[in-house]
C-alpha cells in the first residue's frame, strides 16, 4: 500500500509484525506476573525489609528480568511495526491481541481461573481499544 509517499508492508508482513508485538507483550506480561506471584506480596516485603529489600527481591528474579526483556522486545518490535504499518491499524490491533492473548496465557501458564466474567472483560476492553483508534 502506498500512502503519502510511504510504501507500507503487505498483509502477511503486516500481520506477522503485529503478531510479534502482541506475542512478545504477552510473554512479558505473563513472565512478570509469574515472577511477582513467586516473590509474594510486595507490600509485606516492603514492610519487613524496606523499599530496598522489595527492589532487590524483584530485580534478583531471573523470571522478572526475562519478562522485562520481553517487554523491551515488544517495544522495539512495535517501533519496527510502526515504520512499516499504519499507526491506526498497528496500535489498536496489537493492543487488542495482547489483551486476548493474556487471557489465554494466564489460563494456561499461570493457571488463573479465567471465568466468563473475565473473558467478557477481555473482549470488551479489546473491542474498546480497537475503537479508540478510529
Amino acid at each position, binding site marked *: 500500500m502506498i500512502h503519502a509517499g510511504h510504501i507500507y508492508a503487505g498483509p502477511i508482513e503486516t500481520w506477522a509484525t503485529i503478531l510479534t508485538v502482541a506475542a512478545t507483550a504477552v510473554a512479558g506480561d505473563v513472565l512478570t506476573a509469574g515472577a*511477582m506471584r513467586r516473590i509474594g506480596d510486595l507490600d509485606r516485603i516492603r514492610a519487613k525489609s524496606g523499599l530496598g529489600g522489595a527492589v532487590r527481591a524483584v530485580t534478583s528474579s531471573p523470571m522478572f528480568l526475562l519478562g522485562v526483556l520481553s517487554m523491551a522486545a515488544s517495544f522495539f518490535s512495535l517501533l519496527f511495526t510502526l515504520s512499516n504499518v499504519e499507526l491506526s491499524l498497528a496500535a489498536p490491533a496489537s493492543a487488542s491481541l495482547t489483551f486476548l492473548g*493474556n487471557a489465554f496465557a*494466564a*489460563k494456561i501458564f499461570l493457571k488463573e481461573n479465567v471465568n466468563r466474567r*473475565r473473558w*467478557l472483560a*477481555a473482549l470488551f476492553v479489546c473491542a*474498546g*481499544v480497537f475503537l479508540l483508534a478510529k
Partner: protein
Amino acid sequence: MLTASVGDTLLSHGMTQVGPVTLAHLGLLLHAIRNPWVITGILCLLGFFASYLTALSWADLTFVLPSTAFGYIVVAFLARFWLHEPITPYRWIGILLIVCGVGFVANGPSLTLHEPQHATEEPAPQGGGAVTGGTR
C-alpha cells in the same frame, strides 16, 4: 492507572513542545529528556510500573490488566479537556466498552487461590482445580 494516564499526557505535552523527532534528528531525543514535562511524565510512568508490579504480587494478571485499561478513559478525558484534542463518536463508544469491561472484573474476585498439593487428589469445588478466592 492514574500515574500512567497522567504520565502519557505529560509526555505528549512535552513532546509537542520539543517538536517532531526524525531518524535524521535523533539528537532531539536528548533534548526531549531535559524537558520538565517529559521528566515528570517519565517519573509518573515509573510510579505506574511500581504500582503495577505491586498489584501483580497480590492479584491475577487477568484482573489487573483490564483494570489498568481504565487508564485509556482517563487519557481520553485528559486529551479532550487539557490538550483540547477532538474525540470522535467511535472513541466515546470505545470508552463505554472499556468501562463495561472494567466493571466486569471489578465486581469479581481479584485472585485465584490454588489448592495445596496434598489436597489435589480430592475433587476441587470449582472447575480446573482452582478456587476463586475472595476479593481483597
